[in-house]
């Protein structure tokens, strides 16, 4: 068959099992089998496959490792999945000019591993970094704990190669750290696979800090822990990551192979990383602990030992998976609030879940105000699913009311399509749709995602710009 001639026998699957295995990404609530799965080995193969798929009238959903949490890589019925899992070559690491060029299917952590011998690293570190791909990170503008200091993926992408709906291969951006002119690259990062398939990415590398310390600060209440973070932000302290884990999360992690030595008697722990010169690290760490104690922290540990630090972080990053111990499925919210209001939104989430008899755990990028209220459920229980979705919606609505946003790093995908109307009006969405159409006028790439299925007739809230209108 034509596609097999392009991508090889192992690169095309359309049997029932493969179609079933690709029916979802990490978002399990909406599943749909594709007609065909295509796994090219290079940009050229991807482009050739796109031409065939387009000619045959199929739409395409790009996919990296399928670790996304909002259904961004969920297939469209009758369409194709175009996966980058076999495009995993690291093409160039340039330590002098501090960039790396990789194929889209390179796993995030493999890139960092390949650069560390040069005293450099790739900053965005999503919790799924041991599995997720750089291409997927670009699609979702992924974050991670260390984005508190370094910013999300869009601050680290210098250039990319895009296969568009005509199967044309185009390089966007380059290696210049600060190019001039109209920025086509910026809008492509975070476009959720709706403008083309990213097949190659050039990223900026950061110099490894001189010293890194991880702080584990323990609290008797989650509220106090949240307040401590708000205080830290208000005091303009600059660690590189500020995370919070609550008791249920701690218990799940400690029961797993990733047990990190978190104290099981704490109601919440704050996991902080501080990096820089030794004096700077010491000064910041001292300030943080002092602030935390003022908010009631009963213990604080500092460690610069690499092994111990690695364990502390591995536990944090495995927290989502560890929830498999609580129930078969997990709904991961991804809301953001101003960092002055952490405690309030945590309260909203716990009330929303308690009222519906749902089990809630919290683990989040507190420093960025990016919360992940995690609700455990079993997808076979339709009533429970409905309650989970209702709680999720309530949390998002509260967030927007607090001047927050729907998603900090996971994207909109399928999950938050409806809620887009909480934040954006019809004109905003029309402008976004125009942006998309400039790259993909055919609606070939990942159709039916991100935008609300119906327009937003009334704007329910507008945290930005209410004055201007």
């Amino acid at each position: 068959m034509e596609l097999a001639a392009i991508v090889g026998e192992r690169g095309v699957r359309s049997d029932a099992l493969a179609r079933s295995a690709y029916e979802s990404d990490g978002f399990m609530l909406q599943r749909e089998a594709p007609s065909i799965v295509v796994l090219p080995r290079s940009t050229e193969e991807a482009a050739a496959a796109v031409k065939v798929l387009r000619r045959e009238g199929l739409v395409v959903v790009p996919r990296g490792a399928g670790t996304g949490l909002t259904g961004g890589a969920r297939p469209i019925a009758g369409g194709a999945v175009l996966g980058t899992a076999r495009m995993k070559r690291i093409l160039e690491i340039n330590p002098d000019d501090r960039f790396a060029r990789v194929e889209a299917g390179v796993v995030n952590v493999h890139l960092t591993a390949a650069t560390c011998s040069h005293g450099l690293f790739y900053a965005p570190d999503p919790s799924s970094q041991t599995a997720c791909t750089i291409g997927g990170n670009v699609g979702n503008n992924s974050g991670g704990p260390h984005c508190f200091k370094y910013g999300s993926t869009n601050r680290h992408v210098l250039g990319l190669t895009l296969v568009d709906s005509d199967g044309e291969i185009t390089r966007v951006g380059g290696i210049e750290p600060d190019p001039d002119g109209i920025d086509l690259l910026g809008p492509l990062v975070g476009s959720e696979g709706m403008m083309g398939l990213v097949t190659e990415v050039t990223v900026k590398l950061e110099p490894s800090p001189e010293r890194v310390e991880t702080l584990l600060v323990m609290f008797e209440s989650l509220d106090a822990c949240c307040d401590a973070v708000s205080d830290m932000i208000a005091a303009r302290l600059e660690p590189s990551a500020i995370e919070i884990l609550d008791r249920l999360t701690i218990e799940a992690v400690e029961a797993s192979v990733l047990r990190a030595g978190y104290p099981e008697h704490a109601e919440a722990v704050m996991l902080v990383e501080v990096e820089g010169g030794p004096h700077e690290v010491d000064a910041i760490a001292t300030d943080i602990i002092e602030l935390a104690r003022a908010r009631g922290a009963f213990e604080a540990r500092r460690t610069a030992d690499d092994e111990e630090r690695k364990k502390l972080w591995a536990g944090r990053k495995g927290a989502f998976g560890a929830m498999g111990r609580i129930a078969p499925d997990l709904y991961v919210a991804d809301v953001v609030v101003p960092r002055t209001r952490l405690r309030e939104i945590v309260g909203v989430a716990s009330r929303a879940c308690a009222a519906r008899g749902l089990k809630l755990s919290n683990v989040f990028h507190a420093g960025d105000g990016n919360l992940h209220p995690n609700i455990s459920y079993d997808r076979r229980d339709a009533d429970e699913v409905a309650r989970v979705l209702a709680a999720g919606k309530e949390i998002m609505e509260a967030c927007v009311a607090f001047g927050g946003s729907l998603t900090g790093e996971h994207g909109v995908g399928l999950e938050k399509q409806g809620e887009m109307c909480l934040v954006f009006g019809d004109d905003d969405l029309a402008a976004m749709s125009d942006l998309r159409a400039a790259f993909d006028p055919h609606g070939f790439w990942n159709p039916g995602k991100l935008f609300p299925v119906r327009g937003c007739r009334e704007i329910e809230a507008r945290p930005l710009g209410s004055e201007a209108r």
Partner: protein
Amino acid sequence: MTEAAPHARPFPTDAASLVDHARSLDCIHCGLCLTTCPTYQLTGSETSSPRGRIHLMRAVAEEREEPTVEFAEEMDFCLVCRHCESVCPAGVEFGAMMEFTRGKLEETGTRGPLARLVRWIGFRRILPSRAGLKLAVGGLALAQRLGLTRLAPLVAGLRGEVTAALPPVPPRRERRPLPAVTPARGASRGRALVLEGCVMPELFGRVNHAEARLLAAAGFETMSVPKHVCCGALHAHNGELEQARELARSTIERFDAVDDSCPVVLDSAGCGAHMREYGRLLANDPAWAARAEAFGRRVVDMSEVLAAPESLERLASRLRETTSLRGPITWDAPCHLCHGQQVRSQPLALLDALPGVERVALEGAESCCGSAGIYSVLRPSDSLEVLEPKLEALRRSGARTLVTANPGCHQQWQVGVRRAGLDVEVVHLAEALDRALEG
């Protein structure tokens, strides 16, 4: 739901269930397992990843998919290296699920008739029988002497090429069984029961002897178990669960007859990982469950015993610099040691006790070499493809001796090194230590 110890969690007893459905529900689809999986590395396909296989198993259990030949193929493609278990935050017992599903596939006859015949001969007639093993190994030795194995590639393709690259069957003196008792050197610290295994005595008898000498040097009175042949690990990994249970019961009986409380020490990682889990294997057998559980707790890897502080102290005092071990050396962790038994630091501690030997790290030392029990025989092409990046890593490491601790891995590396034309000796951890052991 997984609060109880894993061994206490039995397989489903429902005759109709093809899949251990309860275990499949532990998976939350996070995908952290993907990159550890050797077959996913090969294909990039979700169906050949741990997450994908669990999805398929669950889909079959929930009757959303049919257990077709293609389904059996995806299950058989898995190496059951259990690397995924080492990173799974939800603690999914993937190896156990896979064993169960393979067993059910066997029972329902999803595989073709020829494949079933070959498996029947291997699992029922050769592995559990010393005579059968001797016959098979004798046949290989004869073929090697007559030069027939060189013709193998012509008639058997890649499988033949692998056969041709097999190391020569050791001379008869290396194949003699262990003495009933090897007395401790110095004051005795107690007894240790040693499993000689099925293929080990035939192909790696020297390793068993080295192990006994090392245990003795560490102060253990080392006992062998007469007439014992096979622990059933290969059967279980390949879904021959009934046969595996029979072998487990007879293993427990024979070992307990010699000593029913001392540690059971293994030099074969695959067997160790399996025997530790006898409790689960026999959990549905009321007459045996408790005894099997207790037996499983006595199973330890040789390196765990030898790296314990008092052993290491005694052993280290007897280790001398030797010319018979070429440095630098490197350690490749057998999957069923690091992932199956969570034994990681002990072998390294032992190797680092070797005087005057430089040890270098092997990239990806915890990923599968492709041996996977009889996988290398059943699927030689996939097996060699899995080994390929490891050979590259070995080349980059600059090591001249590669140390492992499992007969299958040992043989796979020997074949791979030979095919790649590398000047690297492959030795078992016990051999490496034994060569440095004084008198």
